[in-house]
């Protein structure tokens, strides 16, 4: 990946893959409301994809200097498998961990990039993923750990 467009295409592709992942899981789940829930995750990923497409057309990404809170919830939760009988709690854990992995990927790429423009772009993408992760962590905090 050498150009800004190539990197953005890569990121857009990853968002689409995430949307496909949730869509595929939504088709497999057994419970009535989980499907609804997973489709909302899919919609969230497609919204991110749309955001990146706008960036490709000239809109600004989050600045790499902008701070995004890390609640670290996904850091101490176990990995779970996307099974057809998945619960809301586990689906949210998967979502948090996927965003965390994406954040780490872009952070690593930013660290390895030589070109300052590329560095800034990867760092901006990492911030975007951190923001997505924060969204899911906040929802987990509010919906799953209501009493904690």
């Amino acid at each position, binding site marked *: 990946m050498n150009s800004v467009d190539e990197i953005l295409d890569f990121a857009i592709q990853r968002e689409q893959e995430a949307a496909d992942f949730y869509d595929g899981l939504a088709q497999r789940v*057994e*419970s*009535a*409301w*989980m*499907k*609804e*829930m997973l489709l*909302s995750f899919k919609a969230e990923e497609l919204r991110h994809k749309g955001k990146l497409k706008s960036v490709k057309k000239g809109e600004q990404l989050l600045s790499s200097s902008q701070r995004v*809170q*890390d*609640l*670290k919830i996904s*850091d*101490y*939760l*176990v990995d*779970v498998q996307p099974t057809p009988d998945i*619960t*809301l*709690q*586990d689906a949210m*854990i998967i979502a948090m961990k996927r965003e965390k992995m994406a954040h780490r990927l872009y952070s690593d790429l930013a660290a390895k990039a030589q070109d300052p423009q590329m560095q800034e772009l990867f760092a901006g993408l990492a911030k975007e993923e951190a923001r997505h992760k924060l969204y899911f962590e*906040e*929802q987990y*905090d*509010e*919906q*799953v*750990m*209501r*009493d*904690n």
Partner: protein
Amino acid sequence: MSLKDFISPFYVWQRAFEKPYTQKRPLQERPGAPRYRGFHVNVTEECVGCGTCESICQNHAIDMVAVEGLEPGPGDSGLRPKFDYGRCCWCALCVDICTTRSLRLSNHYAWITEDPTDFNFVAGNDPMSWNDEPLGYRRDDDYHLLRTERIPMPMLPPEQGLVSFDEVMRGYNEAEAQNEADRCVECGLCVATCPAHMSIPDYIRTIRQGDYEQGLRILYETNPFSATCGRICTHRCEEVCPVGHQGDPLAIRWLKRAIVDRIPRERYREILGDEISENGKRVAIVGAGPGGMSAAYYLRRQGYGVTLFEAQQRAGGMLRYGVPAYRLPDDQLDKDIEYIRSLGVEMRFNTRIGRDVQFSELLDGYDAVFLAIGLNVPSKLRVEGEEHPRVLSGLQVLDDVASGRDPGVGKRVAVIGGGNVAMDAARVSRRLGADVTILYRRRIVDMPADPEEIHEAQAEGCQIVTQAIPVKVKPAPNPEQVSIVWGEAEMVADAKGGRPRPVLQEDRLHEETYDSIVSAIGQGGNLDFIPAEYRDRIEFKWGKFVPGEYQQTALQKLFVGGDIANNTADAISAIEDGHHAARGIHKFLAGELDA
């Protein structure tokens, strides 16, 4: 005419050269005394529009009026006092009674205007020159027209409560109830905040009058679980009681109980006068918790045949299996439930939808269906090692105790969570002889549990460790025990203005060993019984129904309510959902409600 008569007018002229007693305004202002009872000032931001000033005014000089730009909200009627200076006598009773001390008098006393309607004004809102005047009359700190201290609720001392499951709160006697009822200012702010919009000032008045039968009738207009709510209601009404601004809010929950405690269950039918005239239509209700039973009551009163499906052996839902007897004795819950059942509700216990009866059978076989299945699936910790056999669920512990089983918590217990389930699991464990530590991720002030429950848990010896995040569960050297690793949390502000959020500090970890770890971090619902052909037509969000008007769903015959369909997840909201759904079902079956 005498000489004196002739000369005396000239003496008057002599006065013309003396200093006059009257004053020339505005050239000569004479300020009022520092505590003069002059024109009214009201600090609009502090006023809650309770209208106590209007009630006490003997001259009817005050009207509570809507003010442009001020919206009603929790604990604020949005109204403000408008004064009529054609009637006011500046007695200042309004200032003395003001619940928030927002109302006072300035020391301004002269007001000249050509328009007499100017003398009707909204103090603090209309732009008067004395609005910022610091001097003038205000109530002294050391006296109140209102009684600011609550009549204490007699309760078992902690050391006595700990050795049994006897009810801790003993209830007001008649004199105590009447004295507490006397504190009510009848503003009605509580009515707007109560999810069921109970007529609180009206039933409190019946206590003052000693007319408990009328009190019971008022309670049942909106709440058929009054013995229960008189004990364990989340009492949000009390949070907005204006008397609480200068002291203790009214003990509204205990007063509700005071009415019900004085009337035996056998007299309910005679007092309430519920006569059932069958209308031939049938409604299925799923879940015999407060939401389902409330709907059953109001539907029966309208003549609907009601069949109630309940997975457990007994009715009550979380009230029976999740609230310990020391807070809500079985006989008091049964007092509410048995009256509803006595109206002719068909109960089908041990019946699970999806297993014993299919969801489609309900929709096909009944004119309408109301689902109030609650939240009964505990959230898991989902940290490493959680599957250890000494990690128990708070709901299971409470269910065991309610069902007469020993939950086997051991002698040293860690309870994780800060809600009512956590507090109850902790207090139950104390009663079973355990030393209890409660680990909570946030601060005590953030706990969703009832503050009184938190206080009682502490009084009974439960130790609360705040800002403690569970990180890992490990086997202990003794296989009958379990260890937990928890980390200290730092609180960060929530960008959306919600509760501050805890963030783990990885370098500050602690490890402790216990006989059991009781997890009570939250609950979810189980909606798996709804088949695919229906699910796509129903709106859900975060695992809960999103009902429309009158609790109706897009499946026209299906109404939903209670914890599985609201965000407050307490008994009084479920009761209101049931009542609301009963009204909706009645309208729907009368053809007055479309999906």
